[in-house]
């Protein structure tokens, strides 16, 4: 395509050259002077630029429906007059009255040839290229969504206020924006936009909503406001994670969600991450199995969150103390919930699930894939590497210790043999 444009450019600029050359020829051959017009009949000087461009850039109706003439390879109309000034050309000649004043100071200017400007053509080409380059909408890294300037993953602000009530502290994230095509008898194929968004204040209050409209912004607005109307409250355990692990499913989508320690982060599907951020959950791991249908995923996750039980409820159900062990507290047994009455060991049936995780996961088990050794570990060079670097394994610590003791990397021998240091320096 690019070559095509170049040739076109050459051809367009050629007629002027022809004319110039002809002039020169005419002036040289003074004897054979004739006034008959030269019939240069081709469509370049017969048709206006607009029509010429149309012939190159137009796409048939059927092609346009298929999406031809769009995107990166599309030919764009270029204004070849841009950057060109009357009186200034390839040969740099001063024309008094056209490209320069007739009288400068007290001197009468004469037509003269100036030295050539080598960058003129480059500048022209640059100006022409700037017209055809396909430029994507640039966003700041903070505003970007999951994929550049596409809307999913981007923030669209809080829902519109209802009467006097404002949604302060809320933020809405787009989860899905897609075109739905419907065939209609009279109109043919029509486009509808559907949007799914999640809104929340990051302090336990969140909701999601759908919106449909003929235009994308309208669909987003509808979805956002509907999400604001369907807020739900979620308990956040210690201000950073969920109450307990859970399994949840919607349709063919299955999600295994795990409670995690502080600082773990959100290790999950990007939509689940957005939802967690809207709610205010900071640490969690979620594994999606089965279908990746986004709407099912969102619904399944919200259902799972809503179906969580409080620790007191769990203790009451089991009629047992619920005790928490943390490694940072040296596994001190901290009772976080006690039931009103506690069962004794004899009262517990033999086949009851007493394992906490198994109980809250509803006896579902997460598939743990076997971890294979890394590909290079079986190779001979890795063994060589290990052997070679074994002697360096404590050097970092020693260096640190030397810095603590002497303020620099040196040993008790440095004072004894100062000449060694000088040599190196």
């Amino acid at each position, binding site marked *: 395509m690019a070559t095509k444009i170049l040739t076109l450019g050459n051809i367009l600029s050629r007629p002027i050259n022809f004319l110039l050359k002809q002039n020169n020829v005419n002036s040289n051959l003074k004897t054979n002077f004739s006034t008959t017009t030269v019939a240069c009949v081709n469509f370049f000087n017969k048709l206006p630029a607009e029509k010429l461009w149309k012939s190159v850039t137009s796409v048939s109706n059927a092609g346009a429906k298929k999406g031809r003439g769009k995107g990166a390879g599309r030919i764009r109309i270029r204004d070849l007059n841009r950057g060109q000034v009357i009186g200034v050309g390839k040969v740099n000649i001063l024309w008094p009255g056209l490209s320069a004043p007739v009288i400068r100071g007290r001197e009468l200017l004469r037509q003269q040839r100036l030295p050539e400007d080598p960058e003129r053509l480059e500048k022209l080409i640059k100006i022409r290229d700037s017209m055809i380059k396909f430029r994507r909408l640039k966003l700041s890294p903070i505003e970007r969504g999951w994929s550049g300037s596409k809307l999913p993953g981007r923030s669209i602000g809080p829902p519109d206020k209802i009467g006097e009530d404002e949604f302060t502290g809320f933020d809405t994230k787009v989860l899905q924006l897609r075109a739905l095509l419907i065939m209609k008898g009279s109109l043919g194929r029509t486009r509808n936009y559907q949007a799914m968004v999640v809104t929340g204040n990051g302090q336990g209050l969140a909701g999601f909503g759908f919106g449909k409209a003929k235009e994308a912004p309208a669909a987003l607005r509808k979805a956002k406001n509907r999400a604001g109307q369907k807020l739900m409250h979620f308990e956040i355990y210690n201000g950073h994670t969920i109450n307990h692990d859970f399994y949840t499913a919607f349709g063919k989508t299955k999600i295994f969600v795990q409670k995690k*320690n502080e600082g773990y982060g959100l290790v999950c599907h990007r939509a689940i991450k957005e939802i967690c951020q809207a709610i205010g959950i900071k640490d969690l791991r979620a594994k999606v199995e089965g279908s990746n249908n986004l709407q099912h995923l969102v619904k399944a996750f919200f259902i799972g969150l809503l179906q969580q039980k409080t620790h007191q409820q769990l203790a009451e159900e089991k009629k047992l*103390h619920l005790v928490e062990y943390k490694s940072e*507290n040296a596994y001190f*047994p901290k009772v976080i919930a006690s039931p009103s009455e*506690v069962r004794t060991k004899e009262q517990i049936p033999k086949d009851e699930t*007493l394992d906490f995780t198994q*109980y809250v996961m509803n006896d579902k088990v997460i598939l743990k894939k076997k971890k294979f050794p890394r590909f290079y570990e079986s190779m001979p060079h890795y063994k060589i590497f290990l052997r070679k670097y074994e002697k360096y394994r404590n050097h970092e610590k020693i260096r640190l210790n030397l810095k603590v003791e002497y303020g620099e990397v040196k040993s008790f021998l440095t004072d004894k043999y100062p000449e060694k240091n000088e040599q190196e320096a």
Partner: protein
Amino acid sequence: MSYLFRKLAQTNPKNRIHDAQIFVISCRKLSIVPSLYDGEQDPAPKFFSSNVQVMLKRLTRPDYNKVFRKRTNQGLTILKTPSYKFLTNEELEVELANAKKKAEKLLQMPPVVKIQKHIDDVLSKDPALIGYDTAKYLFTDITFGVANEHRFIIERDPDGILRSCDHDVRKRLNQTYFPMNGRKLREPLMFTDQEKLYSLLDREKYEFVLDRACVQYEPDEPSYQKITSITYQHIDTLSKYELLRSTRHFGPLVFYLTWHQSIDNLILELLQNSAVRDAVLLTALRQDLHGDVVNGESLPSLVHQVLATPIQLTKPECLTEEDIQLDSKCLKCIEKYIKTNSSMKSQQELALQGFRENYKQLIELSRGLQKAHGKA
């Protein structure tokens, strides 16, 4: 002359810096004079006696939330996900008993012993060996399973004398052959550099200083006792006892203060926090160590009663009749102590008065509550 000097200081930038440094140093609180356990009396038998140990542990007031708190020196680079268990009453009791054992281990007090004596033990004099070499020869028995303090370490001096090594050489060689985790061959700067130690103390990093001193030194070393003494006195002057409560260093702190007859500030703090029972224990400790408390004979029985009650981590909200009886006994005892033995009479009496008024209200409240519940 003074004008001249000033001018000199102005012209020479080096001089000016020097002046500034002098000023900073003079500002520092270098007034603490460490007092060691170097007198005639040996503190070890008193410290290790069972009733003193019990009292010291009780005065530590272990709060499990603080004993099992998150520490930075646990070697955990990242946190782990907590685990959960369903437990019956019996299982929970077993778990709590295990945790108590673990807490006792964490709260084991560093021993308080007399300062070490120099080892000056000539094994043999061999004049034939005089001038055999310019260096000393050191011999260490590195047999596995011998305790560090009983290890055989001797030196042969260039003058032909064979003698047992002194403590500093012994420590060095022991650390070389059997390195102790965390102990350095060279003393850390924070202990040798007075400036650095005081900056740590000013930032109230008492526990860090004491923990590191425990690792670096033996309890009978003069440097250990000097550093702990400075730390304890720093805590005492600022009344920051709360920072050491529920740690293993509180017992030695109390013992140090009692041994050196300076418990008045601690008693004042206890009274201000309405811990009369602990104050009674402290006076009993003084009676145990020095035997100079008035009517000290009645103290052991009272201490026995106090030890039978559970530890009060916070101020009580409701009182039973037995509590009231015990507290009134304690009050009387403390009153007598303040009258006769205390050197901070007015402040302590003021604190006691405040406590009494609060206590009166509390008694009325709890009696009223019991009446309202129809129990009395």
